[in-house]
């Protein structure tokens, strides 16, 4: 990120910029926070003395329309985009209020003037869990007419799912139906949302600024819409040294779960328990080789990616997803080859089977089955999605492990078309992640998964690598001497091989930091026992903990575990509280609304 993005030319003059740059190099983070608070207070004071043109506000404050950025998500991506949008808005003298859908009072909608919605889609086109209340209200009969409202929707999703960006689409449709005016067209972002989101933000900002009559009409370049948040981010990851990389499941395990320790000393990276780490992994050169072979292309072929000249082999290794096929590649390849089966799948007729078929056919499988001669590199990659960093909940706490970040990772390996296949980061770490090497990483904050105050009790539910953030939680609580009770539910396949971090939980149980632990192993002799079964066995105690104010966390598999755990929770509340189903659902929703039920599922 350039200085230009941090200090747009129209904000500070050259001399002022030099002062700020000099100052920013010398202050500690605490001093920086104090300075920022100082200026914020000063600005507020100046604003109150309306009309007094101070140095910080060359123009008189305008009686502008209100602007709210409403975000809803489960991973922190939407919240992050909202913060970046608000920061960019400030640079254009627009004040935006950021609100999480989980805490938004829907009746406020009728008072909104300009509303930007950033929302992600989960599972089968569902809204994010913390936003369910908001959706229910907006889509329900109580929703008011909103003729005064202007809005724009930024939808996040994953095009390899059938109901791509559906939650955003639903809000976009509904707000229009309620009479609101669309400020800018909806943008649907795939997992590589940065560019689309930046474009959408720039567009929305330009429109808002223009209509507010503010300043010049210069268009905001997309790449400068978002100021840099930290020194190291997704685009500028830190090369962390791998100091441990060990399979931590025992022999005979059906898994290959790894514990990885990264040295982040000197990176400036900081994180809180609950945050994720993004690993900017590269594709396996052997897989690239196979794809080049299938496409009849040379790895040395030159091409330009994001304005930089590179070789096709390097681009396929570092810039594009080349395993799972995105729908856009199907369209692309159908158009290029004209192959009837592909065209049928891409068209309306193939809609129902498209995603299943894509899951069963990686890019290389499609290229092999529908080969195309005389292809050039640029054309080939045009249908590919940018390679995305992989996010993992951090399994350590900085308070306990200064300068380190631990990751628990279960490599994805399977057979497809008679060949072994594997996940990108999994293979990168398992096969090319030797201790002593480096790994490009950045921190992805997750405000949706946070420890409560030290004296509050916590109930942690996790399956498989979903146990990772709880290790961070307990490390943190141990370092802080936190006194709140803690109860862990953990599920995996086999007790003897797959009890992740077993000796650590045992030690914490022994010294009382961990108050209780229940485990379920689905492939041991009893079989088919999952965390929700253990929750049911402990219904009375679990309900008592909730009644006494415990915070509840769920981490792990989004498709299988999380919904089962959720349903079980509702059932337990209904049974123990003597409630009907509906009231129990309200109870659980209240937990979510008050941020006492947080999920980190994937």
């Amino acid at each position: 990120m350039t200085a230009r993005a941090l200090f747009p030319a129209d904000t500070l003059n050259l001399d002022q910029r030099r002062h700020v740059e000099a100052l920013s190099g010398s202050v500690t983070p605490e001093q920086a926070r104090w300075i920022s608070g100082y200026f914020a207070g000063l600005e507020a004071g100046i604003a109150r003395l309306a009309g007094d043109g101070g140095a910080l506000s060359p123009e008189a404050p305008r009686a502008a329309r209100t602007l709210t950025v409403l975000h809803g998500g489960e991973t922190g991506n939407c919240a992050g985009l909202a913060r970046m949008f608000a920061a960019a808005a400030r640079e254009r003298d627009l004040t935006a209020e950021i609100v999480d859908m989980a805490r938004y009072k829907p009746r406020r909608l009728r008072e909104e003037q300009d509303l930007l919605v950033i929302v992600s889609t989960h599972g089968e086109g569902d809204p994010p869990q913390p936003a369910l209340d908001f959706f229910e209200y907006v889509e329900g009969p109580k929703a008011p007419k909103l003729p005064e409202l202007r809005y724009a929707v930024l939808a996040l999703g994953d095009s390899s799912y059938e109901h791509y960006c559906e939650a955003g689409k639903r809000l976009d449709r509904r707000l229009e139906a309620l009479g609101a005016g669309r400020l800018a067209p909806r943008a649907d972002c795939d997992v590589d949302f940065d560019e689309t989101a930046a474009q959408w933000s720039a567009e929305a900002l330009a429109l808002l600024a223009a209509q507010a009559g503010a300043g010049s009409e210069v268009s905001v370049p997309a790449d400068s819409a978002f100021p840099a948040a930290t020194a190291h981010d997704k685009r500028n990851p830190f090369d962390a040294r791998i100091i441990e990389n060990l399979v931590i499941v025992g022999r005979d395990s059906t898994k290959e779960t790894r514990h990885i320790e990264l040295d982040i000393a000197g990176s400036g990276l900081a994180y809180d328990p609950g945050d994720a780490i993004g690993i900017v992994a590269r594709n396996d050169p052997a897989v690239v080789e196979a794809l080049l072979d299938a496409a009849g292309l040379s790895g040395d072929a030159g091409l330009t990616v994001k304005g930089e000249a590179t070789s096709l082999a390097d681009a396929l290794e570092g810039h594009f997803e080349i395993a799972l096929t995105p729908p856009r590649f199907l369209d692309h390849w159908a158009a290029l080859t004209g192959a009837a089966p592909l065209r049928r799948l891409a068209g309306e007729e193939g809609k129902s089977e498209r995603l299943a078929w894509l899951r069963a056919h990686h890019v290389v499988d499609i290229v092999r089955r529908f080969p195309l001669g005389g292809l050039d590199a640029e054309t080939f990659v045009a249908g590919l999605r940018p390679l995305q960093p992989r996010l993992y909940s951090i399994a350590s706490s900085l308070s306990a492990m200064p300068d380190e970040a631990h990751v628990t990772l279960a490599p994805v390996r399977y057979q497809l078309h008679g060949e072994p296949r594997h996940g990108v980061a999994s293979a990168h770490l398992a096969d090319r992640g030797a201790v002593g090497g480096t790994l490009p990483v950045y921190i992805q904050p997750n405000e949706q998964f946070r420890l409560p105050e030290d004296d509050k009790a916590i109930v942690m539910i996790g399956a498989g690598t979903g146990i990772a953030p709880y290790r961070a939680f307990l490390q943190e609580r141990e370092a802080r001497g936190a006194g709140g009770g803690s109860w862990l539910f953990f599920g995996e396949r086999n007790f003897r091989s797959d009890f992740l971090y077993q000796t650590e939980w045992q030690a914490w149980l022994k010294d009382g930091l961990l108050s209780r632990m229940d485990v379920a192993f689905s492939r041991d002799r009893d079989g088919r026992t999952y965390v929700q079964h253990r929750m049911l066995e402990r219904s009375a105690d679990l309900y008592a903990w909730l009644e006494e104010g415990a915070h509840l966390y769920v981490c792990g598999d989004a498709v299988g575990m999380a919904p089962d755990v959720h349903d079980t929770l509702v059932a337990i509340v209904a049974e123990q509280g003597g409630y009907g189903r509906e009231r129990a659902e309200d109870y659980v929703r209240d937990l979510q609304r008050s941020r006492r039920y947080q999920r980190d599922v994937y």
Partner: protein
Amino acid sequence: MAGDDALLDRSRDISQPLDRLSADERLKKSSDYLRGTIATGLIDRITGAVATDDTRLMKIHGMYQQDDRDLRDERRRQKLEPAYRFMIRVRLPGGVCTPEQWLKLDSLARAHGGGSLRLTSRQTFQFHWVLKEDVRATIQGLHEALLDTVAACGDVSRNVMCASDPQDSALHAEVAAAARQVSDHYMPRTRAYHEIWYGEEKVASSGAEQEPFYGATYLPRKFKIGFVVPPSNDIDVYTQDLGFIAIAGPDGLEGYNVAIGGGMGRTDNEPTTYPRLADVIGYIPKDRLVAATGAVMSVQRDYGNRLERNRARFKYTIDDKGLGWIKAAIEARLGAPLEPARPFHFTSNGDSFGWRETQSGRFNCTLFVESGRLANRPGRAWLDGMREIARVHRGQIRVTPNQNLIVAGVAAEDRPAIEALLAEHGLAGGLESAIRRNSIACVALPTCGLAMAEAERYLPDILARIEAILAAQGLLGEPITFRISGCPNGCSRPYVAEIALTGRAPGKYNLYLGGGFHGERLARMVRENVGESEVLSVLEALLGRYAAERLPGERLGDFVERISYLASASQVPARITPII
């Protein structure tokens, strides 16, 4: 004199308050007759282990908590607890079982015991590799076959041994019955076993009713009883805390010579611990057997050292109080003096292999089972073979004190079928060297928690190397007793072997030589803490001399004794005898 208790040092025995005795004594006392928290530990899903205190109590229930030591380090790095498993030892007085019981043992070994059955040097079976959640099922399975594991380990009378006499004399039958009688009489009476393992209801009863003989703190340490029928000393009667040597007259069994104070265990670098051979202190007529057993055990119960566990065996009580005092105490409790010991004669402590015709006209076949391990291995489908035999066999199956098997009571017409099965499964044997047939290894690594070095897994290799030396000296046909233990405790009775190794560290052993061929003399330590090459070079030199200088019929152990006597005739006996 036994009556002079006022002058006796009783500062370490049961007369003292518990807080002056060892933690083990307090644990036994507070365990509510061996209940402890075993039942809750079994359902704790966070660990494959049980509480440390419970592991001690569970020994008296016949099981040891162990872990796969091959994986211990690897799992520690993986943040996984050790791969805990349980060793379960059956109570099998005299080592006798029926084919039906064998089939049950076999199926339990396949279901829960990692596919192997281990014959022990105390004539019973051990299951290894049993998971915590399978312990109950294993014990209930044994119960179905009228077998149990009560008192197979721990501070009680252990599995009572009895000569395995392949001739099946009438005398042997009578002695075997006596061994069972003693075993049953001195079994712990606590109901804890039934409650924990069979799930039976707890019945209210007073402490005295629970353990009329042992009391709440049981014995200071394990107590080993064995019956032997001369001239075979297969049970190594001199290594028992209490040995009964059967004395027969013209009309069969008349009584027993009583031997007390044998024991193998020692602790490294603890000169106050040592192996000791039993002393024959007299003779009792056979109708005094149960009373004599009670008299001997109660002396140890009341005077044994309960403060220092490594000095708690009966042999130390005898040496601390004096053999004469102990004998008098026993006689006082018996109400009569022991009669003078009767003459007897031993020839060997090994097994004799192959078919023998018994006095009743049936046939017994002794099978060599290397290290007592029955499993299915390439060319040696021994577990399968014994299962097939048990399916057709109509007699008994016996475990010998040397970890071998006897298929006993085969009718002449059934012999061909048994022989065919033995041949088919590689059980017929007959090709092993004489030293191999006279070898014993304890289990040691990877399961035994005490092992410092390999034993069972190393035996085949070290024997092959010794066999090469023997072959070069033309001694392959010479029966020589060879025993190896993974630690100094000596479960394979190494200290009475002609050649023995006891483990000190991975690949390092103490080398002992010169034990008596029929178990009558302790071996001498000739090298301490040495590796295989040093062991082999000592043996090469020794066996060379033995081949050249032995007297007619002279056993290796006797030869070693003669040359070391010559070598050190004028010297004070050293801890290590550098005879070679």
